């Protein structure tokens, strides 16, 4: 069984970011980059499948050479193989076409992706890959069981749990609550260092033309000065806060 995890390298959400010249991307050179947290859950889930049923787990990313760091992290966590896809892809559709092609080349049975990436939060790629492959697809999975060529996935819905049966191959995306990703181990890090990363180069013939373009990015405005209400008793203060939220901030 081949399990493919789609991994994206994103800027550390705990760190500050800068925009690149032209404002169409963040400055990836200066950013501290991590594996997208939802993808870490995907890696963990794939490793659990491997530990239970035996499988070869692949981590696949699309990106520049620097993105191989994310693959090394995946390898250090215990993933068996890694591949980097390079392709002229810029929007979710072209990225998904490239990744779907990689999934075909690896002959995957299960594809696990994060529900969204912590940077652009578009949440399209997993679903697009499933569509392009014409495979069953379960989004935002909180529990996953595989047995033989069948599987059961749970997802949380308003006030309850939805349980879905499917047969392989399948594409699932992860949601909080699925698992707690393990840490990379030192022996894992050392092994990851020596591992060769498969290179998959794809051209425009595979990925096609993008259908979306980023016009420009803006950093959120710096937080304004707070306002402190003085000389009011609690009841008056509460009234005043409600008035401000309603009339000035127009939040309620």
């Amino acid at each position: 069984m081949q399990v493919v995890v789609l991994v994206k390298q994103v800027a550390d959400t705990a760190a500050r970011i800068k925009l690149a010249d032209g404002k169409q991307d963040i400055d990836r050179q200066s950013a501290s980059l991590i594996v997208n947290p939802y993808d870490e859950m995907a890696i963990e889930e794939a490793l659990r499948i491997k530990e239970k049923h035996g499988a070869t787990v692949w981590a696949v990313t699309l990106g520049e050479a620097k993105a191989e760091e994310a693959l090394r992290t995946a390898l250090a966590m215990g993933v068996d193989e890694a591949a980097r896809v390079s392709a002229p892809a810029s929007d979710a559709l072209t990225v998904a076409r490239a990744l779907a092609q990689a999934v075909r080349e690896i002959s995957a049975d299960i594809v696990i992706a994060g529900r969204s990436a912590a940077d652009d939060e578009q949440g399209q790629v997993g679903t697009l890959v499933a569509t392009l492959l014409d495979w069953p697809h379960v989004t935002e999975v909180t529990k996953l069981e595989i047995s033989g060529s069948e599987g059961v996935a749970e997802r949380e819905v308003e006030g309850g749990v939805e349980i879905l049966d499917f047969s392989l191959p399948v594409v699932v995306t992860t949601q909080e609550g699925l698992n707690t990703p393990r840490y990379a181990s030192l022996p894992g890090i050392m092994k990851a260092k020596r591992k060769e990363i498969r290179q998959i180069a794809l051209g425009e013939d595979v990925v096609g033309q993008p259908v979306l373009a980023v016009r420009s990015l803006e950093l959120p405005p710096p937080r304004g000065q707070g306002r402190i209400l003085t000389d009011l008793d609690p009841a008056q203060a509460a009234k005043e806060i409600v008035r401000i939220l309603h009339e000035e901030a127009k939040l309620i």
Partner: protein
Amino acid sequence: MWSWVALTAIGPDYFDVDSLLTEEERAVRQMVHDFVAAEVMPTVGEDWLKGRFPIELVRKMGGLGLFGPTLPEEYGGAGISQVAYGMIMQELERGDSGLRSFASVQSGLAMHAIYRYGTEEQRRTYLPRMAKGELIGCFGLTEPDAGSDPGTMRTRCRRVGDHWVLNGEKRWITSSPIADVMVIWALDEEEKVRGFIAPKGTKGLSAPAIETKISMRYSATGDIVLEDVELPEELRLPEAKSLAAPLTCLTQARFGIAFGAVGAAMDCFNEALDYAQNRIAFHKPIAQTQLMQQALVDMLSLTTRSQLMALRLGQLKQEDRFNYTQVSLAKRDNVRAALQTARMARELLGGNGITTEYRAMRHMANLESVDTYEGTYEIHTLIVGRDITGLNALG
């Protein structure tokens, strides 16, 4: 100009030391950083107050490969670089000096003593299990009346037939109350220092905890009492023939401390900078006052210098061209710099700074121990002094 990169959660890194690390070293640092952030930071303040060592983390740390990581794989190590080892220490001590002490003693003292001075059988029996955290080690050198001058130890070993009998008392031994494997140093009848592995449970061996510490409370510290403890010759470390043996182990652990101190200092600086930018007094952030800026810059300066010295020391050790006197200088300076940084951070935090809800005072209290153990500030001064003058002021 102050670049934002220098301010990431894992910094500060004002001189981009990051780019001097290998990818493997960065990965190790990130992993330990994440581990500490998730498993240590949420509870360390409370546990520290209770005087509780987080014993439940030992196997987890072992599972990640954090013990004896520079040893060859056959003994449970991962063969990582010296700087990567330093990064483990830095990130553990960013959490708490007690946690780093545990790792220092496990790896640098206990495992190192067995690796370096033990038989092949002793290595195979103990090292892989210690690497996994299944067995906890400690290192008993200091005594109630022999600290800076361990050569005057009173613990004695006497050969009787095919075994040895040990008598004496050790004091201030990190992890002794929780240790399964105690490395113990004793003088024989010819006044030569010999080393032993004493398994917990051996008759006559006990390790009462020292309960009155107001420093290093996230660490188990205790005595070791030896009353006619009988150990077979197979539990003696045959390659240890003089005081040089325990001192070589200490060099190993001090090396780690030079990095660890940087982690504690970084945490204090980060906490202080964040606090100063958000704490308003006289209608402006205290970071906007000249005095607090000076304090912050001094902290950054001390931390950055320590970081650079530690890294260089790690590189020299990797190339096997370092000297124990360089380790002394780095241990001495980096710990003192961290202590000063912690004191300044504590002061900047005002009243909040004296609680365990903030980190500075906990680090500060811990670093008082770090400044003393593994050779005091003064002793390292005299070691380096002797080296550069050729004149011995120590003895």
